[in-house]
């Protein structure tokens, strides 16, 4: 990997964030007047005007945009009209809950998805392989909200084992995590399986065995590490689907995290909060993909040298 390769990647990442934030900024401003959402449809016109002047909403949109960018660069991300406090503060308060949900889900996804995929690939075309793939198709075909509501019906309503929503104890965590893990682990299992199958039939596996390695040794030393390379790219997508799934799952289970805050803030046209959350999501996506790219260049010696043409 060369510095040039890294620099290219970082510049591209920054541009992506800027593009996403700008789009969101403009779309939000064009899609409704926050003054009406906050003060109500039958509010006094003078009050509405005062609100707009107070928050600079009466300015032309490009002036608002430049103001927004300059504020952002100075660390001021705006004010939440709805919660009537600093928007960043409101967002950061919810962040730990979402990170907890994502962390636990991520852990289970990796612990279940990868071994299942490896096992299926090693027993290619056996009934175990077919079963694993069947379960996995079912897993990622099932929308989060359907599975979530189904789980609530089963565990909360029928058996009364778990709380329907909220947070605080590990019991609260079970259903949201389960809902998200099913879909994520299914995708991971499929990717792992196909990555493994690809690698298991490479000529270098045969060479490894011709040297005297036993099958399982060749798998451990040559197949698993090489299959991990394409799998790293999946992690990039994974963070994206985790966030998207999180928004739905948090809403279903009334989980007090960023996803639910995003949904309510969009509905209330709480512009600053939406902007911050979108920015956070964009940054985390871009950052993950940046890390994936750099990691790729490090894991696969062919990548860096191809890009620079040595």
């Amino acid at each position, binding site marked *: 990997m060369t510095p040039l390769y890294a620099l290219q990647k970082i510049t591209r990442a920054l541009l992506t964030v800027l593009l996403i934030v700008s789009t969101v900024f403009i779309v939000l401003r064009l899609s409704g007047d926050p003054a009406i959402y906050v003060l109500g449809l039958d509010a006094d016109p003078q009050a509405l005007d005062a609100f707009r002047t107070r928050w600079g909403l009466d300015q032309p949109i490009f002036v608002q945009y430049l103001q927004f960018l300059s504020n952002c660069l100075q660390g001021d991300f705006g004010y939440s009209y709805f919660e009537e406090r600093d928007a960043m503060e409101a967002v950061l308060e919810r962040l730990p809950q979402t990170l907890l949900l994502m962390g636990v889900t991520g852990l289970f996804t990796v612990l279940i998805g990868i071994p299942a995929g490896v096992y299926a690939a090693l027993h290619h075309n056996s009934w175990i392989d077919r079963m694993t793939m069947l379960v996995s198709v079912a897993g990622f075909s099932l929308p989060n909200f359907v599975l979530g509501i189904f789980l609530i019906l089963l565990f909360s309503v029928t058996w009364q084992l778990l709380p329907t929503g909220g947070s605080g104890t590990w019991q609260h965590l079970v259903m949201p995590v389960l809902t998200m893990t099913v879909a994520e682990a299914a995708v991971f299992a499929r990717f792992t399986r196909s990555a493994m199958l690809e690698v298991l039939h*490479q*000529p*270098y596996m*045969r*060479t*490894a*065995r*011709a*040297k*005297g*390695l*036993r*099958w399982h*040794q060749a798998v451990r*030393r*040559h197949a698993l*590490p*090489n299959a991990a*390379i394409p799998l790293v790219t999946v992690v990039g997508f994974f963070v994206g689907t985790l966030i998207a799934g999180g928004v739905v799952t948090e809403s279903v289970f009334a989980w007090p995290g960023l996803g639910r805050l995003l949904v309510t803030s969009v509905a209330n046209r709480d512009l600053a909060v939406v902007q911050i959350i979108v920015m956070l999501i964009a940054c985390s996506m871009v950052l993950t993909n940046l890390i994936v790219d750099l990691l790729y260049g490090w*894991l*696969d*010696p*062919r990548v860096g*040298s191809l890009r620079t043409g040595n």
Partner: protein
Amino acid sequence: MQPLLEMRNLQVGFATELGPVPVVRGVDLQIGRGEIVGLVGESGSGKSVTCMAAMGLLDDNARLQGEIRWQGKRLATQNDKAMSVLRGSELAMIFQDPMSTLNPVQTIGKQLYEAICINHPERMSRRKLQTRALDLLRDVGVPAPEQRLKAYPHQLSGGLNQRVVIAMMLAGNPSLLIADEPTTALDVTVQAQIIELLQELRSKRGMSIILVTHDLGVVAETCDRVVVMYCGEIVEHGPVSKVFSNPRHPYTHGLLASLPRIDSSDTNLEPIPGVVPHPDQLSEGCAFAPRCPHAAACCYSGSPMMQCSDSEHLFACFSPFPVNAESRQAHAS
């Protein structure tokens, strides 16, 4: 003397969704110490599968019958544990495309060290390991071996990679090297170097070599014996000089006639008409009959048995080419 490797009526079939497909159909083959045996035939004649069977490297859907003996002892070719002990230390194999036979994300050094470690019972220090790896690379003629240890396969040329693979296979000092079309993917000049290297291994280490190839020129130059395969069967085998100067089987004759010759003004090559039939579409009788210019009625009904042209030269054909004058003279003297 006891042969190093012996196959007796080896049959390999592959279980597919459409039922078993026979790919090797009764091969009898002996490889002695220090000899280079050429295994030739068109693609799909079962050469590679025969070799993979001996290495115990066939896929799980392969069904194997008959026996393979190593120094008189029967090999449990489907037993990975037993075979892994022999692989690398007794028999080793090199492959067609050297660029993909090495792990692309590991350095040459790491892959070499691995080969050395597996074939050494006691633990070796890093330093000893490196010395041994450098020795191996030097043995196979890799220039500047110190730099190569840190290189990745994609940074080396095809010819160098093939030398590295050979070095890896020599780590356990095997008595037999199976070279499955080792030069097919290489430049002509590099081909000659690799073939030269193989000959050197035989003369210096007394190693036996099975050379699977399409190149009859290479066989003529390097091999002691040649085995001609067609559709999973051996159709003719014997010393290279005898088989090439007096091919008895029409298939061998066809292969030789389809080669361009530098000493002949006749520019017309004679390709063998038709193509190799798919293994599950073999007709009854001799498998070559549909393409054979000599085919008689009996060729379509019964399979020809191996018969002797002389004590060393055998072929399986009902209507063979006659013994030519040269050979008859050689025989008489």
